């Protein structure tokens, strides 16, 4: 599993790997929002947690179809599937690689972009924490969606259609935790619920992803 993770990370950072695309997208969406809603600091501060969460979610969505598509095109997928790595671990490694290359940079960049949106300082730790807990779940759910749509024409659009409804609970609890943090309310409950969803995803989704991969490999 470490070998596969290392390979995927290396591929992502090399030329043409698309590393940083999600981050750039995150930046652009957040920069565009004030143009849409006006520059008033009070309004921006109020919507900042939600905007940051939605933008992070869309940025994570952007790179999902690359998770399996390239391995499918060049024929790596059947070779990986016949390797001594269980398919569930393959799914987990892929999700982890996606999180490290997409989710983790978003978490790190979020406070900087929060400043742009006048997010109050007391909200920063909550925003960081909610993103850090929530983005792995986004990667796992996305990997499942990617496995369902491997090798389909127009798979990218379909992938968004399938994955976005699955993102709803994560988005709700994540953004809620960040918003409560911003308003100075106790935010532990949504954070714990978010962590519960994340752990559930880690425990169950690799099996669903592996099942989908076995079908697409047939």
């Amino acid at each position, binding site marked *: 599993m470490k070998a596969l993770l290392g390979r995927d990370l290396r591929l992502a950072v090399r030329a043409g790997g698309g590393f940083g695309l999600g981050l750039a997208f995150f930046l652009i969406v957040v920069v565009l929002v004030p143009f849409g809603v006006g520059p008033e600091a009070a309004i921006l501060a109020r919507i900042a947690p939600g905007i940051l969460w939605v933008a992070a979610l869309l940025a994570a969505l952007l790179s999902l179809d690359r998770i399996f598509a390239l391995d499918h095109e060049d024929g790596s997928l059947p070779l990986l599937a016949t390797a001594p790595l269980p398919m569930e671990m393959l799914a987990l490694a892929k999700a982890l690689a996606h999180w490290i290359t997409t989710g983790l940079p978003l978490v790190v960049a979020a406070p900087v972009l929060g400043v742009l949106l006048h997010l109050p300082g007391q909200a920063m730790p909550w925003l960081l924490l909610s993103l850090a807990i929530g983005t792995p779940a986004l990667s796992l759910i996305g990997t499942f969606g990617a496995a*369902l749509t491997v090798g389909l024409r127009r798979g990218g659009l*379909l992938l968004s259609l399938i994955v976005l409804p699955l993102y709803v609970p994560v988005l709700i609890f994540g953004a809620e935790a960040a918003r409560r943090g911003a308003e100075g309310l106790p935010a532990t409950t949504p954070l714990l619920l978010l962590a519960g969803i994340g752990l559930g995803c880690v425990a169950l989704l690799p099996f669903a992803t592996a099942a989908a991969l076995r079908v697409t490999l047939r």
Partner: protein
Amino acid sequence: MSIWSYANPRKFLDTTAPWVPWLMWLSALVLAVGLVWGFFFTPEAERFGSSVKIIYLHVPSALMAINAWLMMLVASLIWLIRRHHVSALAARAAAPVGMVMTLIALITGAIWGQPMWGTWWAWDPRLTSFLILFLFYLGYIALWAAIPDPDGAADLTSVLCLVGSVFAILSRYAVNFWNQGLHQGASLSLDKQENVADVFWIPLLVCMAGFVLLFLALVLLRTGTEIRARRIEALRNRARRTGAVRA
């Protein structure tokens, strides 16, 4: 003779096809009785005025929107465990019906919401859940349509239905949580069934029965269509293999 013998597509088709027109007429009759009774022969509720009568469409369609998904879930499980093709095709057939039911529930809800709450749409937990359910139906139907191999499509949509069900339930609770977070306890939702007196309740039950019959009729009809389409495909494939392709 076990119930699984009906998993044979031919047998299923032969058994259910004669039922479809009867079910259609029966559901039309029951719905006509229920709706006319509900619309014209019930008193106007003092708080709601005549707008309340939309519940005779709203509540049964909402009921069937959820039951259709449950049926798809059961059919998906049967396909994954026992690999009966009819089961997978029935799940496929039920999805658009369920989606339309969800849409009816949403639209009638909006029409009802306008006079009651002064708005077409509110991000009330119940409304929001139905909107999310609608999105789940969309994704499920789109996945079926996108995969050319019928068995692969059945497998993948079944897995999606299973995972989707878990996330749909999660969303339901998440949405409840989310809205309370917004308006501390000030929910717009009307608790429908508990406040309803028998005068309204009995025609409502009739309408629900009508919708159940309509759903059964439509799903059986559509499953039959799917089986026939699949059979045509199978015959074409065989003709291609044996080189006996005729125009």
